[in-house]
């Protein structure tokens, strides 16, 4: 047995810290939660309120813009149509809203952090273990404090999703910028480009394929979080899976699972098409 005298009451400290946060900054957290919720609810209303065929047309237009490939457009529209046929359209729209907000937030935070990591080796050395922790820590561990700070519902679900899904876009932004050809950078410096001109004119455009891959991974990971997020009260397809488990209703669980997979496929294909487009030179298009 490990000697008990050596035990560190880390758990107690964390509890005290969270209590202290709730007591002193509860109002600030609530204000933040409210603004996030406003955005999410508005988006959810638009998606759920829109006729199903408008959503399908929107998906078709986005897919066409990304890929210029009719087969892919038809495939993805059929996938979305299938979700409707499973009777899960409304829930899918809820999940979609949650996912769009979580992914946008991840990208909004992730790209600047990734850029900062590429600029500073010290920051990178600090961030890498933090990103590892974010990705490997069981999500329930941070769902509990998130619940205490924000209450049950959509906001803690979004935050838990961001914690889990933001690391890939950070890592790949950092990697993409670091992989930019040194001679191209030197050329740009030798012409007297400022750091801002180098970042926006050379580093980010050349890192774009990697950044797009990061955004794609982040999207996929946020979809995979929806089931877990449903345990703290986020509605949507995850809720349906949870219900299937609780009632031992294999069929209902399977339906919801298939709908999640279809949604994931749609977003993966759109993301990949944008990623490919950022890789090829504009001339290949008119060729």
């Amino acid at each position, binding site marked *: 047995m490990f000697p008990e005298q050596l035990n560190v009451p880390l758990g107690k400290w964390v509890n005290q810290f969270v209590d202290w946060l709730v007591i002193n900054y509860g109002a600030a957290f609530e204000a933040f939660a409210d603004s996030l919720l406003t955005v999410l609810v508005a988006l959810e209303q638009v998606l759920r309120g829109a006729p199903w065929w408008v959503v399908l047309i929107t998906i078709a237009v986005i897919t066409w813009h990304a890929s210029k490939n009719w087969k892919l457009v038809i495939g993805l529209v059929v996938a979305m149509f299938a979700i409707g046929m499973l009777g899960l359209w409304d829930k899918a729209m809820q999940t979609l809203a949650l996912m769009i907000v979580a992914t946008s937030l991840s990208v909004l935070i992730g790209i600047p952090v990734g850029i900062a990591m590429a600029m500073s080796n010290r920051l990178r050395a600090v961030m890498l273990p933090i990103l590892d922790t974010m990705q490997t820590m069981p999500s329930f561990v941070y769902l509990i404090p998130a619940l205490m700070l924000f209450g049950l519902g959509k906001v803690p679900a979004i935050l838990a999703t961001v914690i889990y899904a933001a690391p890939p876009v950070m890592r790949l932004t950092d990697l993409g910028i670091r992989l930019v*050809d040194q*001679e*191209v950078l*030197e*050329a*740009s*410096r*030798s*012409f*007297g*480009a*400022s750091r801002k*001109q180098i970042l926006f*004119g*050379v580093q980010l*455009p*050349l890192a774009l394929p990697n950044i797009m891959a990061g955004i794609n991974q982040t999207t996929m990971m946020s979809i995979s979080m929806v089931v877990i997020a449903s345990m703290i009260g986020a509605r949507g397809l995850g809720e349906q899976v949870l219900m299937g488990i609780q009632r031992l209703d294999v069929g209902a669980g399977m339906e919801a699972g298939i709908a999640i997979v279809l949604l994931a496929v749609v977003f993966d294909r759109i993301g990949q098409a944008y990623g490919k487009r950022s890789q090829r*030179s*504009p*001339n290949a298009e008119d060729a």
Partner: protein
Amino acid sequence: MSYIEIRNIFKIFGPDPKSALELAKGGADKDEILAKTGHTVGLHDVSLSIEQGETFVVMGLSGSGKSTLIRHLNRLIDPTAGSISFGGEDILAMDIPALNAFRRQRLGMVFQRFGLLPHRNVMDNVAYGLEIQGTARKDREAAASKWIARVGLAGYETKFPDQLSGGMQQRVGLARALATDPEVLLMDEAFSALDPLIRSDMQDELMKLQAELHKTIVFITHDLDEALKIGDRIAILKDGKLVQVGRPEEIVLKPADDYVQAFTRDVNRSKVLRAQSIMTPSRSEAKPLDNVSFTVDVDTRLEAILPQLITTGDRSIIAVIDRNECIVGHIHRNHILQALSN
């Protein structure tokens, strides 16, 4: 004072360059410093004076420090010790905005692997320097078009770098460097990645451009033939130290040491030596020679004289004239044979 003055530059790579600097200043060589401190000496007490309008070639093998040296001229690398000035202005004292302004207005650089921006077409690559300067789109595209045509790429404006051959890509690199009309052109092994025939073309092209533009060119190469062909003066670097600086003829005729001699052994001397460097200077009081077969200009290279020798007799003498058509010296057939056989 020369246009570019490089004084006692040391560059030491490693975590604590200052400690190794004392050793280097004490005269320790590259291997010794590496063994004692783990630091790599890039440049060891290099001083050079480069004149305005000359093509100055720095030659050395890989690891000699030549690429490090050229990067000191636009401060892509800062020296551990020493001073660098352009037209009397100390560039090491410049802060970042001043340095960027200096790079934008006065320098252009051409890279070994071209360093073109792969996401921009030929037009936007050539206009890049002007874009950084903040020139309006219309003006920079006009200037870029001019230079694109000048390097022979008219019609390729909308192509992307990966659609061009190596030689064409380097023409874009050259046009990009010239588009800002810089005073100094830095060329880092600019033609080393090209096929021999294309390399030779590009060398000719550069010399033709230089004859009109009179830029100050600092050209880095590992190829002595290239150095001798395009250089007004040549500096030879070995292990970060300057071995010899001189005109091409001086390098070939009076190599400073065995290292330089080994390099010059395979050189085609008829392409390097000029009439002036092998002639016997005439004294003004000397009476005119009567058996002169033909006259040549002081700058004529031997390769141009040789064909004319075939038709003349053994005892023939060649008179050497300067730009004012005055005879300044003469060459015996035997002088030429001697110069070529050394």
